[in-house]
């Protein structure tokens, strides 16, 4: 009898035993299903992986298809980058928070900008009222950027900037700041998010219509591939897609579909795939279902590698490697019993580490209540340090590989995500799918289903719909200085009085011309930043040429 036959025979006996047990003690639920709607079986065995070819499906860490990770030694060489997303109020306050985080052992910076900055308005714009400095730091000009990084040598940190529509402008500010610190561009390491497609479907900070937005993105790819070779020119983000309500499978599918659209656009713009492919990076969510998440990261790596190789003909191994940042799931945090969030975050962070993340943000326990306090941020960072230094999970590469369940689930997520990707491709790609509202509707339906599961107690959230206690709402929450907007407006006035107005106009005319002729926008934007043009002025110049995106509310 072969090994598999012996297992089959043993499984038949096991099933008999199960049948008897079920008569005495039924299971908790009639059927077990994960958040992606994938059935979860009672037990997994080699029978679930009958045709499993190790070399084809997994290979070794650092080898195609990179299921087991993109580096041969993973965290045995160096831990992931511990990078807490932070920013609020003025550049000065945020700069203080950065020094605090770096002193606490954080290894990379991650800039949160306020909404006016993200949508290309200066702090004195009418639509910025109420929003200045709230969800991030307010940056109007190079002046603010200088304050933000005061005392931080740019060749010593890697910096991630969550900026999309105006990414080219913030990137230019960072480059000019490097010039002022006498640091050459090739020493700079970091990431700009620069992922417009998920803004249309899930996050909302778009400015221009899709076509010119894609053009700006490919301009950045082209410019940075030559001038800023260590910079990640995009962080293709599933995080916000998941936060908007998508399932794990939808997160992988919609994110990778967007990724392929950027690759396609850049190739059509004349860039060879291996010039920009190695600088593409990703950003995923680490949600509550621990094993589903681990499998998700592994499946995403495999789909990316195969598609880059087979569909786009990438040859450079770095173009095939899906490198990603992870953040724990803000949407799983509860305002009730906020201390419980520390535990949620720890499990989610652990799934990201077991999934092989390159960098990680752990959410703070008080995020369902307000911006994180300093103490909450410290616990969040300590959670990562604990996983790294105490748990031992970082000592061997991809330790869950070979688990019958993990491998089966990785295959299943890959297949289901690929089916979605194919559907989107048939529709004409993500831009068309977003214009038709397809992606938004898929996400909304999942979000509504999730909420109904909670309200019917089908899905238990500890402290929310079970194990509740009477509690007082916490008081020690971070409050943003309400005078930030006034101070920013004063600074803008001062800036405008001091700078050479003619030089600004000339530089903005250069931006306009490039926007009209289709020349690469990075050089004129750099010139405008050097001339002290504001973010709002540069964006308005682009708005004049490109127009603004009008979203149809698909509800």
């Amino acid at each position: 009898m072969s090994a598999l036959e012996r297992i089959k025979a043993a499984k038949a006996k096991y099933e008999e035993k199960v049948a008897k047990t079920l008569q005495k003690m039924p299971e908790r639920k009639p059927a077990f299903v994960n958040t992606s709607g994938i059935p979860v079986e009672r037990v997994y065995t080699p029978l679930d992986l009958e045709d499993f070819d190790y070399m084809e499906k997994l290979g070794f860490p650092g080898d195609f298809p990179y299921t087991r990770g993109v580096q041969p030694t993973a965290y045995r060489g160096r831990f992931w980058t511990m990078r807490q997303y932070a920013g609020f109020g003025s550049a000065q306050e945020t700069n203080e928070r950065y020094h605090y985080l770096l002193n606490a052992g954080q290894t990379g910076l991650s800039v949160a900008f306020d909404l006016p900055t993200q949508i290309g308005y200066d702090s004195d714009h009418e639509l910025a009222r109420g929003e200045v400095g709230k969800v991030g730091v307010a940056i109007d000009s190079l002046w603010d950027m200088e304050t933000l990084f005061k005392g931080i040598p740019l060749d010593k940190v890697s910096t991630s900037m969550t900026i999309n529509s105006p990414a080219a402008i913030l990137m230019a500010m960072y480059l000019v700041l490097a010039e002022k610190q006498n640091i050459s561009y090739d020493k700079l390491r970091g990431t700009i998010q620069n992922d417009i497609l998920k803004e249309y479907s899930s996050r909302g900070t778009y400015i221009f219509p899709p076509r010119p937005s894609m053009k700006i993105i490919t301009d950045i790819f082209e410019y940075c591939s030559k001038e800023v070779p260590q910079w990640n020119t995009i962080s293709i983000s599933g995080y916000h897609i998941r936060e908007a309500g998508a399932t794990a499978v939808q997160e992988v599918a919609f994110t990778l579909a967007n990724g392929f659209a950027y690759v396609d656009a850049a190739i059509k713009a004349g860039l060879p795939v291996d010039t920009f492919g190695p600088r593409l990076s990703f950003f995923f969510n680490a949600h509550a279902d621990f094993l589903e998440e681990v499998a998700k990261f592994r499946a995403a790596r495999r789909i990316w590698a195969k598609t880059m190789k087979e569909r786009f003909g990438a040859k450079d191994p770095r173009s095939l490697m899906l490198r990603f940042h992870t953040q724990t799931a803000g949407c799983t945090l509860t305002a009730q019993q906020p201390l419980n969030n520390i535990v949620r975050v720890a499990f989610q962070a652990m799934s990201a580490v077991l999934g092989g993340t390159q960098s990680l943000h752990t959410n703070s326990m008080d995020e369902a209540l307000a911006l994180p306090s300093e103490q909450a941020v410290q616990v969040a960072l300590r959670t990562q340090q604990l996983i790294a230094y105490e748990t031992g999970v970082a000592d061997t590469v991809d330790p869950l590989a070979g688990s019958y369940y993990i491998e089966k689930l990785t295959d299943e997520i890959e297949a289901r995500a690929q089916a979605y990707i194919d559907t989107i491709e048939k529709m004409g790609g993500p831009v068309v799918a977003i214009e038709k509202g397809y992606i938004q509707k898929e996400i909304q339906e999942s979000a509504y289903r999730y909420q109904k599961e909670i309200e019917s107690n089908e899905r238990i959230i500890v402290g929310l719909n079970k194990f509740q206690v009477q509690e007082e709402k916490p008081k020690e929450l971070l409050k943003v200085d309400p005078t930030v907007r006034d101070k920013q407006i004063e600074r803008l006035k001062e800036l405008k009085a001091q700078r050479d107005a003619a030089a600004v106009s000339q530089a903005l005319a250069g931006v306009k011309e490039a926007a009209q002729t289709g020349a690469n926008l990075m050089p004129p934007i750099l010139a405008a930043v050097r001339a002290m043009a504001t973010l709002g002025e540069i964006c308005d110049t682009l708005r004049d040429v490109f127009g603004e995106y009008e979203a149809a509310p698909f509800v």
Partner: protein
Amino acid sequence: MPERKIRVLAAKPGLDGHDRGIKVICAALRDAGMEVIYTGLRQTPEQIVSAAIQEDVDVIAMSCLSGAHDYLFPRVTELLKEKGVQDILVLGGGIIPEEDIPTLKASGIAEIFTPGATTTQIIDFIRNNIRRN
């Protein structure tokens, strides 16, 4: 004559893009038999008030997770007062610190729903507090 359905304007004031909550509420209110008009993102208080009057709604339900509620929500109730509108029930929701709630209510927001609130609570609140029939 059939009973008029409760009409709700669901709105996202300000620049905040977090629309998961408001969209879930739109779906739940519709399933509860209400008529819901969703404004989409980035609405100014002026746009919200004029849409509410034009659509003749009974309820304005606003959501804001960016922290700008302290300016935006009271601005909507202020504009309603300026226009002499008294019979629209105004609700707010989002990441709203406890200590901000009394001021918001004093400005005329009938109720503030924070994380953990259920769609059933919101539906019941609307049915019990609607100001016109």
